[in-house]
């Protein structure tokens, strides 16, 4: 073929990209943020611990006199539920913790507002709270017994006093960190003091409050253990103390597991509240 002119060939351009090219094949930037979180992702850690414990118990590496197997705990728990001891004691404990948590959180938030929004409040309250932080709960208990007796009032007070500190500190810090620009906005919109607190201060301090609440919830269970093992005739702590006297390691273990589950559940609840209440935020974790 001797064509007078070079054959015209329509070649695809050098950088031709087929339309079907999968987007995933295109080089992207390294993602530094996190991917979409799994709803039950946090179960992995506790699950691994359970697996490790089961393997050690099943292979006989773990002496049941030192730590009974997980299934022993489950069997004992079922027995305790059958004769009603577990749920009765659990209800008592949960009620104590809940009361302490409510009082402690309320006191923490109110004190944080007073100390964060007024200069005088800041001078008076903040120093006192810092002093209180330095005193361990255990050291306070003899005085608490002296002041409030050995009844429920003392127990709830100890828990409330333990809870209020982290709630106060986190709320106060978040409140003081509220952007001055938002304060100016509230001024130009002529919000009342209460309107300012309701629309600007509380929502702005809410992330801190919820962080404080997470610490507070965990702290409330700790305080509960202390007061129940010290002087009580009911509750999970009492159940554990009683079991210790008779060397019933399986019941002690059930008590521990219940404490752990309570801690984990309450923390999950607060985290759920956090997710729901802070939907307006876009962060690394969202």
């Amino acid at each position, binding site marked *: 073929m001797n064509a007078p002119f070079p054959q015209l060939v329509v070649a695809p351009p050098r950088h031709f990209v087929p339309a079907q090219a999968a987007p995933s094949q295109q080089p992207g930037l390294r993602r530094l943020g996190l991917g979409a979180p799994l709803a039950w992702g946090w179960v992995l850690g506790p699950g691994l611990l359970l697996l490790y414990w089961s393997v050690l118990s099943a292979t006989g590496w773990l002496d049941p006199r030192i730590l009974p197997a997980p299934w022993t705990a489950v069997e004992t728990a079922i027995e305790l539920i059958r004769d009603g001891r577990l749920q009765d004691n659990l209800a008592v404990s949960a009620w104590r913790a809940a009361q302490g948590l409510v009082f402690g959180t309320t006191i923490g938030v109110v004190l944080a507002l007073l100390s964060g929004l007024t200069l005088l409040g800041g001078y008076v309250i903040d120093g006192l709270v810092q002093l209180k932080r330095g005193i361990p709960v255990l050291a306070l208990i003899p005085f608490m017994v002296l002041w409030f007796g050995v009844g429920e009032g003392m127990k709830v007070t100890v828990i409330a006093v333990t809870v209020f500190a982290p709630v106060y500190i986190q709320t106060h810090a978040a409140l003081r960190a509220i952007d001055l*620009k*938002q304060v*100016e*906005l*509230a*001024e*130009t*919109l*002529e*919000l009342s003091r209460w*309107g300012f607190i309701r*629309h*600007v201060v509380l*929502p*702005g301090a*809410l992330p801190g409050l919820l962080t404080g609440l997470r610490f507070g919830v965990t702290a409330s269970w700790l305080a509960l253990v202390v007061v129940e093992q010290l002087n009580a005739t009911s509750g999970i702590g009492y159940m554990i103390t009683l079991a210790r006297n008779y060397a019933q390691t399986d019941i002690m273990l059930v008590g521990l597991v219940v404490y752990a589950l309570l801690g984990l559940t309450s923390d999950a609840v607060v985290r759920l509240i956090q997710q729901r209440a802070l*939907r*307006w*935020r*876009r962060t690394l974790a969202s």
Partner: protein
Amino acid sequence: MSAVVQVRGLIRRFTRKGVLDGIDIDIAGGEFVALLGRSGSGKSTLLRALAGLDHEAEGTGTILVPERLSVVFQDARLLPWKRVLDNVLLGLTGPDRQARGLKALDEVGLAGRENSWPYELSGGEQQRVALARSLVRGPALLLADEPFGALDALTRIRMHALLRRLSEVYNPAVLLVTHDVDEAIELADRVVVLDDGKIVADIRVALPPDGIARRERTAALQHELLGLLGVAVDASTSPYARSERIPA
């Protein structure tokens, strides 16, 4: 028209920044005034004084402003934890507040976005919400502190048209702080130039409606204002200077 804003002998000194050195200014009802000046000339200080936001300032002088007064800041300042409509309604009272808020959102072209979170909006949309929030109160005076400064050029043009239209509807007196000469000429009835805490010029814009005369007047104003701001205008390179030579 009688003045809704009267400032006499206003002196402000700050330890941090900004001074005002004897400001006298009147703004009539419905008048659109642009306050032009370099950084540090005191233009934001004057606006904050009128808004009553300068708590820590020391100074003297009298300020008379209407009770119904709104401020638009450079950033939209939406509360991130409130949905768009709740941001607009913040601090608003009255039985029909909901309806008024929705109407204001409609006027800034954001009908149907009332349930969005602020982070879901673009910068221009957020600033439109801020505009709705300030207009829904029916202000007699609107104070705007470089409200378009953080927006991209195209969005700014659209916002100019929107602000002009809305200020015709609501007819507040407007004090717009800006350092953008073109923005001042396009929007304002009057341009006040501030330098080192003093008013150095007070110019009526008075643009003719007709195309060429308008362009000439614009170019002359640009030249004058840039000169006042201390920007040397080179006749051979400046687009402002060139536009003066458009044949009639």
